[in-house]
């Protein structure tokens, strides 16, 4: 089986919903023991997602969203509103290397699990606290879903159609999963630092700032030149034509990106449009960029008579970047992603075996990362309270009766 990169690292995980669980999944799949602290009294909102495998009222273990974001983790249930519950959580934390949360400001402190409180007991602890706006600053209390954070960060204001100038939100509940891809790096850097120096630390992670570090073009356009970038449509400075074009079929589109004069000539050749090739104003990037709306119309007229697959294959065979605009069903059945094993069967005790999206990385020396199903609610209570904390079966039953382990 081979060794997994993060073996021996334990994480007490208080995050929930989307971006936190995806971030921690990177760690659990790569061998960290991630223990989710949950509760039946306030289950992760994805556990109660109305759609489930059976299509009917299905309890807390059958939601696709939860199961695909939490595989490879362990789960225990604690009522954090009780004093005994807080004590149990603290004992798990003290047996862990990293603590993660995505609570509103001050919640971990109320549980007695804030960084300042924990480091007195365990100086080498790493606390990763992810929040929409970060742990300090005058608007630290602003709360909301990730999808609204792109509003504050300015990404919504540069996303949208050029003609109406309206700000827009992005697909894929952006930026939750982008932050889920990006923030594990921040945690891993802290773990690396600890391995080298023995020092723990507090990691105050702001989703809003994560988004801002990914739009430097617009930020520096303002800080250097005072110009405010608006919605860009599909415009790309160094490419034209560049956009999505209507194809045959119901709401079918193909994306095309022409990066050089050579590619433009290729496009004209394979589409049989000598007339475009002869047009001098299209011969260089400046000309194509200036006439891009006209070009978009011409190319759209050509694509709409063809299928997405036909256009993609024709242009790619000529060395021009093109590809289908796919919805999530098409992504799930895409032959390239399947060939790259981006969906693998994971057996789950309640839903059976289902393909699940994996982590998008291939490590040549880690051929078998840890892909086991998401925890049923409270599935690892015996392990966590018995084995890890050394409590007797009687004590555990007692705490269950007292609604502490629940």
């Amino acid at each position, binding site marked *: 089986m081979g060794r997994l990169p993060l073996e021996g690292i334990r994480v007490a995980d208080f995050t929930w919903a989307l971006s936190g669980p995806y971030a921690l999944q990177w760690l659990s799949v790569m061998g960290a023991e991630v223990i989710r602290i949950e509760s039946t009294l306030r289950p992760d909102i994805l556990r109660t997602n109305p759609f489930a495998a059976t299509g009917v009222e299905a309890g807390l273990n059958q939601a696709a*969203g939860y199961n695909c974001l939490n595989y490879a983790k362990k789960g225990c249930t604690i009522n954090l509103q009780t004093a005994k519950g807080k004590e149990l959580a603290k004992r798990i934390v003290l047996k862990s290397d990293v603590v993660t949360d995505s609570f509103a400001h001050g919640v971990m402190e109320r549980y007695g699990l804030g960084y300042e409180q924990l480091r007195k007991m365990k100086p080498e602890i790493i606390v990763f606290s992810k929040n929409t706006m970060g742990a300090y600053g005058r608007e630290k209390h602003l709360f909301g879903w990730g999808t609204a954070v792109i509003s504050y960060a300015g990404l919504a204001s540069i996303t949208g159609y050029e003609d109406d100038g309206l700000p827009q939100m992005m697909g894929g509940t952006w930026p939750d999963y982008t932050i889920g891809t990006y923030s594990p790096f921040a945690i891993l*850097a802290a773990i690396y630092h600890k391995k080298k120096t023995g020092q723990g*630390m507090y990691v105050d992670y702001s989703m809003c700032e994560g988004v801002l570090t990914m739009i430097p073009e617009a930020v520096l356009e303002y800080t250097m030149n005072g110009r405010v970038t608006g*919605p860009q449509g599909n415009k790309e400075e160094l490419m034209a034509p560049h956009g999505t074009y209507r194809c045959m079929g119901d709401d079918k589109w193909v994306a095309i990106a022409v990066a050089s004069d050579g590619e433009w000539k290729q496009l004209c050749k394979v589409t049989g449009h000598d007339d475009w090739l002869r047009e001098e104003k299209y011969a260089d990037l400046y000309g194509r960029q200036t006439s891009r709306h006209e070009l978009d119309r011409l190319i759209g007229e050509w694509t709409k008579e063809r299928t997405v697959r036909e256009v993609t294959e024709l242009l790619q065979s000529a060395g021009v970047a093109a*590809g289908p605009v796919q919805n999530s069903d098409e992504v799930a059945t895409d032959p390239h992603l399947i060939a790259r094993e981006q969906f693998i069967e994971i057996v789950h005790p309640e839903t059976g075996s289902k393909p699940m999206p994996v982590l998008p990385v291939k490590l040549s020396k880690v051929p078998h990362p840890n892909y086991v199903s998401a925890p049923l609610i409270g599935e690892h209570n015996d392990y966590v309270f018995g084995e890890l904390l050394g409590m007797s079966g009687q004590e555990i039953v007692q705490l269950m009766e007292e609604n502490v382990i629940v």
Partner: protein
Amino acid sequence: MVADGGLSDLKIVELGNFISAAFCAKLMGDLGAEVIKLEEPGRGDDARRYGPFCKDVPDPEASGLFLYLNTNKLGVTLNVKSATGKKVLLELLKDADIFVHNKSPKEMEELGLTYDVVKEVNPRLIMTSITYFGQYGPYRDYKGSDLIALSMGGVAYGTPIMVEEPEKSGPLKGGGHQADFTTAAAAATSTMMAVFHRMLTDEGQHVDISSMDVIAALLRPATANYFYGKMAGDRTPASRTGLGTSIYQTTDGFASFGASNDGHWLNLVKAMGEPEWATNPLFGTREGRAEFGDALKGMVADWASAYPKKELYTHLQSHHVPSFPVNKIDEVVASEHLDDRGFFVEVDHPKTGKVKYPGYSARYSEPIWGIRSPAPFLGQHNEEVLSKRLGYTKEELVQMRQLGVI
């Protein structure tokens, strides 16, 4: 900056062009790693030609995107297509921990720089290959771009999240280069996994990162839903029922908010001064709100349009409704909250003077993150790297320059 902290003992060689490899290396360099960036002699990185250009002067040493992406790096020009250039690269790799590049598999084969070659030189080396489609699979040799990755990975289809007339409004990329930046983040996270693996086993490895995989993985609940039997919705407002996060017009711009769950819905109707809506038979329940979502959204939009955005989101937040302003870029740069957090950092560069850049998304309690030096001029550190480290004499450097190696 502590001498032995962060990632300061890691040495990275970057053969990167434009965003993905450069941002991956920047993330590590800003945490202390040494990054030697290799650029094509005379031409340099494409980001140098992208802009935004300081004061609108198209100087390859004053491109905002390039300057942001290449802080804390040593800049070396090297023609890796020449035999001598390749020899110099392999000498650099002998002493490096990480080699990150974003050339296509075909280009790397033509250059003779496959993982099989570099591991012979340094078996402990971690080689991170960032491409649009990965090292294998049917689309391996397809040409890609930011837009193509967002399209094939499923995010463009949902951008904007809905449109009134799907046949007229094509899918969009997000503002800037969201696929390239997210791919870089995945590469940085994955490279750290390989670093941890090497701490356990002392062996290097090949890290294969594909943009299409990374973007497709962001859709995980949607693709998991597909495997559980639930199909994707289309792009019409009808498939976006209920009061999920949306952007609303205010008297002075836009704000985003939503009330998708019962608690937030009750808070919203109170905030709107319409408490009787909570018991209205039409939309007192989740199902009702889904069915009459359009009408409801219209009424909410009418209400929101009467307020300035700051008053609106502050009022909604005080009633515990998730809400944010839709900031334009000038507004987010002027954010007092981000100023409290010291998010934007001022970087002094000889060509631009002091300019504010986005900082980092995590604030560490240990001083491991920082901008130690601005982006290099083309070939700025040739002598430092090639003479001082590899021992080439002044005469040899002169000759290499004459012959186009550096």
